[in-house]
């Protein structure tokens, strides 16, 4: 199967190590991975800002970039959710529909499609998992604490395969971190307060590493952590899953 790597714009520009880790992880699993250079951004920042009507050219560029692959995989729950919910093109709706059905967030791709049963990674640290909201409630990467359903978590399933990794319990395992796209600057005070709450939770439970499915959430929390000079390591889940490989 031909797998295309869909790298969020801000990961491409500011966190290339996350994209490299994702690439390496997929290659380690013997997948035929390509990175289409045509890709730019999924258009989510504009759409969530109320400007979905301006995302037409972003959408057609996305379709152009990713046509012809069996799977499109991204280390980002929120970008994948946006594409699944909002990728449309008046001129090529069939192509858009095809792509919406083939796009996967990294963890769900590994658990549901590749059906990974073991990973030879090793990461003997106390890790707090930040469950990004769009991936969790939107893509159903994990059950949410509000609903009365049996517990499941795809990211957790993968982290459990990592040798030596100790997952900490949190008081509020799925409270939003407050990034929210442009929200992080338009409602800066609330956004920062929400992020700091999460960090207090990690501190209380003595985590040393924070990980998650979305670099946007992590970038926001890392910004708060660095400003407060707290000793946490912040890593995307792809980086944890190739640790020690």
């Amino acid at each position: 199967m031909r797998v295309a790597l869909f790298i969020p714009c801000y990961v491409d520009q500011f966190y290339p190590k996350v994209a490299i880790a994702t690439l390496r992880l997929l290659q380690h699993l013997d997948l035929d991975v390509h990175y289409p250079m045509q890709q730019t951004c999924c258009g989510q920042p504009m759409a969530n800002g109320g400007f979905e009507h301006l995302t037409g050219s972003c959408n057609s560029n996305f379709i152009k970039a990713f046509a012809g692959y069996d799977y499109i995989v991204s280390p980002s729950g929120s970008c994948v959710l946006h594409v699944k919910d909002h990728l449309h093109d008046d001129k090529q709706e069939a192509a858009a529909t095809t792509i919406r059905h083939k796009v996967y967030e990294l963890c769900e791709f590994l658990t549901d499609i590749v059906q990974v049963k073991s990973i030879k990674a090793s990461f003997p640290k106390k890790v707090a998992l930040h469950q990004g909201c769009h991936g969790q409630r939107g893509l159903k990467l994990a059950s949410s604490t509000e609903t009365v359903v049996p517990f499941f978590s795809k990211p957790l399933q993968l982290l459990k395969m990592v040798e030596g990794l100790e997952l900490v319990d949190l008081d509020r395992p799925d409270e939003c971190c407050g990034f929210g796209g442009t929200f992080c600057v338009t409602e800066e005070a609330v956004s920062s307060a929400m992020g700091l709450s999460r960090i207090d939770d990690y501190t209380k439970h003595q985590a040393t590493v924070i990980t998650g499915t979305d670099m946007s959430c992590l970038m926001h929390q890392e910004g708060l952590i660095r400003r407060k000079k707290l000793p946490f390591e912040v890593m995307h889940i792809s980086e944890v899953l190739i640790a020690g490989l």
Partner: protein
Amino acid sequence: MSTHNIPHPEAATAFLKDKERVQWHDETLWFVRYKRDKIVNEIPEWEQLRELASQIKDHTLSRLDEYLQEFEAAAISNGVTVHWAADAAEHNRIVHGIMAKHGAQKIVKSKSMLTEECHLNEYLEAQGIEVVDTDLGERIVQLNKEMPSHIVLPAIHIKKEEVGEIFHQHLGTEKGASDPLYLALAAREHLRQKFLAADIAITGVNFAIAETGAIVVCTNEGNADLGAHLAKVHIACMGIEKLIPRTEHLSVFLRMLARNATGQNITAYSSHFRKPAAGSEMHIVIVDNGRTTQLGREAFRNSLKCIRCGACLNTCPVYRRSGGHSYHNATAGPIGAILAPNLDMRKNADLPFASTLCGSCTDVCPVKIDIHNQLYQWRQVLTQEGYVPAAKTASMKVMASVLSSPARYTFAGKWARKFLRWFPSLALNKKLNPWARQRDLPEPPKESFREWYRKQASGK
């Protein structure tokens, strides 16, 4: 007392200045959410009940005009007087009209968010009529001359010492007293006198039953009943969306309302009013006030299913940290943010943006309103209608252009990184860049991923 029209971000920033108080507010409301989780997990069929409740409400909305007529006919045959109010002003005039007809001077009112929406108290006070809110939380905010900050827990933003001060001033309790039991007992005595002396009792309506013309009111305090049974005239105010088809449907809603709202199995009292007692009068005021408009909005009509449980407020991380008053509407929180723009887009354009779209509200809603999706949809509507600042529109157009072309995008990204490396202090300037107020910026890498990938590919 009118709601201040400070936009949400500003109001939230002000609220967040008192860090300790915000932590208390956030934890108190989170605890209500925690109690809710605990009790709903005792009901294995909870998710099925949500689906059932959602479908009953969906069905009702699809036959709303018919059910309204059925309800009215049944109520009239029960000896109830039915009034129709197109908007808030008419609602207030009708309620006042009933009072004027009876020469009523003393009114007691149990919790009704609809009457808050219509600013009924202000209207009546201007006509020289004393209205006493009898729900303890409502009475506290009434004495303090402010709006409730939560649809179920009106005084959740007020500390017991502050209640003590309010009661000392207005009820003559001891100065400095803050024991909730002492204060609640003082309120009991004070309000008992009001109940006994009232000419007219106003209540809200939790559910209106189309087949029988009955209305159901749920309270823990018993204040709706004390009001309605002691006064000679009972006025029940309801929005058109409070209807459910049949009595048996109450079983679904009464199982869900209190559990979702406060984590209790059911409220102490669930009162079914069908016919007035002999010698008494009962009136029902049916109010539109924008609801039929919302009914016609395909993306937003679902919001009319709301049973006002307040769970979306309790779960919302933004509401808990910004407080109900920052939403400048009678109904705050996520549900408020999707109802209010229907009434006034310009005034409420900030509300759908006061969210990260985390989706927790949608998950807790007992009638499956897709709240976070409606927040997203309102953003599109408000933008298209022109209620977004011109500067934002301009920068979004630039963004759309840059992000739709690989060449422009690559160029922009490279120079953004260079800028951050060369002018870190400018980027970190708190006035120019709100991000930087409490956060550091990421270290800008020398190479983007695509630059690295290209090198790797050509190196082979």
